[in-house]
């Protein structure tokens, strides 16, 4: 087993991995940029080392610097978290070359799945269903037009190296195709350094359902159940749950077996996720494979009873999967919501700043994976994810009610968050009925219409009481032990109005 693991990440996922290291008796090493000196992952780690300026390119994406620190501190493995270098084949290879274990799949697996067109070619060869379209980049508008005419509009243009909604265009008609292709290609070139764009048929408001897989270094691969991730804003997930309200055991088995086949084609090891688009007739199509631990892994942990980060570390250390597919059974229902520092009523504008007050929820069936604390300043330099709040219950209604209850306990002051939006989603009858697809958030009405305000009176009284009680407690600090009566009298006397 490893003795010391360097976590090449920040925020809640770094804290999550540090916790797993602690639980396994492994020394946890954090790295941080200028602006993250006081971040929670630095405070929680056993050791922490500075790796550069705030810009991610010069710190959390700086392969040389991270490897240098790992060697200097004597780490024997690196956990990349998600995002940053987690799906960077060059980094995985550089770790291997430096005799540091990369906790994740091999560089070759990452490389194969990193290009969506290459992955589609592999799936084509394996006979795995994927969304109809090209399995390589299109070279010209003419070629794109021919393909689009064959599969039928609307079509989706996608960057082969893309992710997070960048380099993506929905095209409804032939006329839009030329400029959309140009836009997608240049955005892909700018964002990923690769202008390759392919075409696939656009499924209208599909569901996004993914399957967790896990492989060890002894050719065992299992699936650990699906996650429904249809609630998204701008192609980024907001709320995920397991199991999916529309997946029954037969569909789960079929999806799971295909996911395992996908992983096998890449000789996959460690944690991975196979994403599918699902149409209204519950047909599912391979979309892509994410070669890392997902943000939403806690819902799978709760329904399987497994700790995926422990498992990642054990498997990277060479251990076998401690169970077979037959041992996996799902129990209960889990829903995660992502708490972002952003303003959902203002086009999801990021809202960095100092957290002036933080009240965390707790209680039955609640798990909070947070990367922040009261008094800390959320920097503008990185992803706005603050924390993940997960509700677990014996069934979906209980999970929903626990999560809704916890969202009302949760308070983040000083910055804007999407907590009001999350509360609203959980209160919707269609969400409660499990009736969701990837167009859900766009259809949800804005909050102004929905919010009922009828407690101005208590708000006004509270404003006055805050001012009054604060003043008397300030005086109380001078006159220790004085009664409330004396404090108030003294406060008035100080103001010269007695």
């Amino acid at each position, binding site marked *: 087993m490893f003795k010391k693991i360097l976590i090449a990440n920040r925020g809640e996922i770094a804290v999550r991995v540090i916790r797993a290291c602690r639980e396994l008796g492994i020394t946890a090493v954090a790295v941080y940029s200028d602006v993250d000196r006081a971040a929670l992952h630095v405070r929680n780690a056993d050791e922490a080392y500075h790796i550069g300026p705030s810009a991610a390119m010069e710190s959390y994406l700086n392969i040389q610097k991270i490897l240098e620190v790992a060697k200097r501190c004597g780490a024997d493995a690196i956990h990349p978290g998600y995002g940053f270098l987690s799906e960077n084949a060059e980094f995985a290879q550089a770790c291997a070359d430096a005799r540091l274990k990369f906790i994740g799949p091999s560089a070759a697996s990452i490389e194969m799945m990193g290009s969506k067109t290459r992955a589609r070619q592999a799936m084509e060869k394996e006979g795995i269903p994927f969304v109809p379209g090209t399995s390589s980049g299109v070279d010209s508008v003419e070629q794109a037009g021919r393909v689009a005419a064959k599969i039928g509009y609307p079509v989706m243009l996608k960057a082969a190296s893309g992710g997070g909604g960048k380099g993506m265009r929905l095209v409804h008609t032939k006329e839009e195709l030329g400029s959309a292709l140009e836009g997608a290609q240049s955005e892909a070139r700018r964002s990923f350094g690769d202008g390759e764009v392919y075409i696939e048929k656009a499924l209208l408001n599909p569901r996004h359902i993914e399957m967790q897989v896990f492989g060890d270094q002894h050719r065992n691969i299992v699936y650990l159940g699906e996650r429904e991730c249809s609630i998204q804003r701008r192609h980024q997930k907001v709320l995920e749950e397991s199991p999916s309200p529309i997946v029954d055991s037969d569909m789960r088995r079929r999806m799971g077996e295909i996911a395992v086949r996908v992983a096998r084609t890449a000789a996959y090891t460690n944690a991975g996720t196979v994403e599918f688009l699902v149409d209204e007739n519950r047909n599912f199509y391979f979309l892509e494979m994410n070669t890392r631990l997902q943000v939403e892994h806690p819902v799978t942990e709760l329904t399987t009873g497994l700790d995926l980060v422990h498992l990642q570390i054990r498997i990277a250390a060479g251990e076998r999967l401690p169970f077979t597919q037959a041992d996996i059974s799902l129990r209960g229902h889990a829903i995660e919501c992502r708490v972002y520092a952003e303003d959902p009523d203002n086009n999801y504008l990021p809202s960095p700043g100092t957290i002036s007050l933080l009240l965390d929820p707790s209680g039955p069936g609640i798990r909070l994976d947070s990367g922040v604390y009261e008094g800390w300043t959320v920097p503008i330099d990185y992803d706005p994810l603050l924390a993940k709040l997960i509700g677990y219950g014996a069934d979906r209604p209980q999970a929903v009610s626990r999560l809704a209850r916890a969202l009302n306990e949760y308070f983040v002051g000083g910055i804007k968050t999407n907590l009001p939006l999350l509360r609203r989603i959980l209160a919707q009858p269609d969400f409660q009925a499990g009736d969701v697809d990837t167009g859900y958030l766009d259809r949800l009405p804005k909050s102004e219409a929905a919010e009922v305000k009828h407690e101005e009176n208590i708000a006004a009284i509270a*404003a*006055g009481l*805050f001012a009054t009680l604060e003043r008397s407690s300030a005086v109380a600090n001078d006159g220790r032990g004085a009664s409330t009566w004396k404090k108030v009298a003294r406060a008035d006397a100080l103001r010269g109005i007695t």
Partner: protein
Amino acid sequence: MLYEVSIDGKDHQLQLDLVDGGWRCRLDGLLVTVEAALNRPNVLSVLMNGRSYDLKRELTATGMNIWVGSVCYEAQIRDPRSLRGRKDGAGDDLSPRKLVAPMPGKVVRILVRERAEVEAGQGVVIVEAMKMQNEIKSPKKGILQKLLAAEGSNVNAGDVLAIVE
């Protein structure tokens, strides 16, 4: 304690008095008694007629947000007897300064004659509002240049009562 409170842009008058360990609140026409505990900065527990309110405050650039449960109200508060935060409270000691009525009320007494010398903080006019008498004090040492208020007259918030030079 007397405050002017604005909630989501609507102005209210609030008077708070500590009576038998509870707070008697007169909000515009409404009279209620509540129990209040400030447990930590920005977190207030209020019990009103047996109902428990957990209230949070966020200070903002322009004032504050008061959260009642999951609903947010934009609030501003002013203590009419405090000179802090008033526009005319700023400026140097040489220029003339206005005394303004911090809230609507009735001028019940005038304490200083026109052209008389006043000390900084000396009471000049007493305005009564919501059964509370509030002394409007001179912001600086000087001469009471002009007296615009008359005993018995009604004034609105922001009316100039006197000018000290």
